[in-house]
């Protein structure tokens, strides 16, 4: 099954490149023993790419919600805290933040007398989650603010407190507007997880890099790498569209 999929995507890429001097598909030809070993080596990075992305997304969503709530408060200083976090985090490029977390944070821990090593796995997750949380926070804020103020007031007049109002009135309505962009944001995380390769995380991109070093066939291997991300992203996109349809039909049906 995987062999056929890989072969097919290779065919797509080969179309139009007739010169055999340029392409050397043997390196990842699943029909040859060595090629199949190589392909399996590459695709095995998929597990970590997905795992990192999913855990980072879950943390980012929780963090985003916590960061978004003060933006909806009456008090000015709470809203300012939200603005500072969002603007600050949003302006840090991912790679420098990754280096800071992976190489810098352990030093801070050590100076505090803590011996917490940061493994590539958690270093990547922390960085992706924090970087993404600024965007999730904005998605939450927009979604919640789009629910009319009248809904909050009506909830208050039937005696609900802040958390009950959020839980039973605002969130169920906001979630319809929040989920599709949130799922879209997951695509961003999947793509950005490629940066984890530079701190030694064994995911899709790292695997491709390592194979390029031994096989010296960057064109073919990176082409397959791109196809791997493409397949991942297309699957998620299909999920997003399905979600959007479901949410949309719910809204119409009421």
């Amino acid at each position: 099954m995987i062999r056929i999929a890989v072969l097919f995507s290779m065919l797509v890429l080969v179309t139009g490149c007739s010169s055999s001097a340029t392409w050397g598909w043997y390196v990842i030809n699943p029909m040859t023993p060595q090629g199949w070993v190589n392909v399996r080596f590459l695709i095995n990075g998929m597990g970590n790419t997905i795992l990192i992305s999913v855990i980072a997304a879950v943390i980012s969503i929780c963090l985003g919600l916590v960061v978004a709530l003060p933006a909806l408060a009456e008090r000015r200083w709470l809203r300012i805290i939200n603005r500072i976090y969002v603007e600050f985090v949003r302006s840090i490029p991912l790679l420098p933040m990754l280096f800071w977390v992976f190489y810098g944070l352990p030093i801070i821990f050590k100076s505090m007398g803590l011996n917490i090593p940061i493994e590539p796995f958690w270093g990547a997750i922390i960085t992706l989650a924090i970087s993404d949380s600024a965007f999730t926070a904005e998605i939450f804020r927009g979604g919640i603010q789009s629910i009319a103020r009248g809904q909050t007031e009506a909830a208050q007049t039937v005696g609900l407190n802040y958390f009950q109002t959020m839980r039973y009135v605002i969130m169920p309505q906001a979630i319809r507007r929040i989920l599709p962009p949130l799922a879209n944001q997951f695509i961003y995380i999947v793509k950005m997880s490629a940066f984890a390769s530079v701190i030694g995380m064994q995911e899709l991109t790292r695997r491709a890099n390592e194979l390029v070093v031994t096989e010296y066939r960057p064109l073919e291997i990176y082409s397959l790498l791109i196809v791997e991300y493409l397949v991942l992203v297309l699957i998620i996109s299909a999920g997003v569209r399905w979600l959007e349809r479901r949410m949309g039909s719910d809204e119409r049906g009421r």
Partner: protein
Amino acid sequence: MSQYAIEMIDVDKWFADFQALKRINLTVAPGERVVVCGPSGSGKSTVVRCINQLEQHQSGTIRVNGVDVGSEAGATAAVRAEVGMVFQQFNLFPHLSVMQNLTLGPMKARGLSRADAEERARKYLDRVRIPEQADKRPGQLSGGQQQRVAIARSLCMEPKVLLFDEPTSALDPEMISEVLDVMVELAEEGMTMVVVTHEMGFARKVADKMVFMDDGEIVEHGPPQQFFEAPKSRRCQKFLSQILQH
């Protein structure tokens, strides 16, 4: 214990540096029906919203059943427990069924069991004459039906006072009377009501006291007979002649 259901003493309210309410003094006795009218932007909504603290006033005192609404933490919750509110835009919860709209407050804020809350909801849906719509979503109802659900939702909290902020202004003309009829019934049953409305027919029928506001002030107030027959101020005369023309 105060003898008044609502007592507003020298209440001032600013939005930034715009003064929306100027020295408002208003009392509502238990069982009394007060109708507030006045031109758009005169502060009618603000008065009503200050009573249940959807807006906070800056000076003066507001008491509901003797409790000073701004006094301490918890006072607002205590006051809201006794004051129901019906909005111009209904503000029903669109993601919940009519039944869930009615039971949410009693179950979550009052700790009623689902069975008790639903029994209570059915009683008040009956009262507003839409017992058959319990399982529909608000969006599937007409405007008049939605506003009656909103009234039932307030009644489910069994409030001592009901506030109405232009409850029929967002309705198509043919639906206004079905809502007013329900309100007249409530008045006849002795509910304490503060109603912001331009429905002068309704006002004549149920009001014990008329209040006319303009420019953040209570310009004139009194029993409806005197208010409609012999308004004292020019502004009130002008307003009434305009509104009674159609």
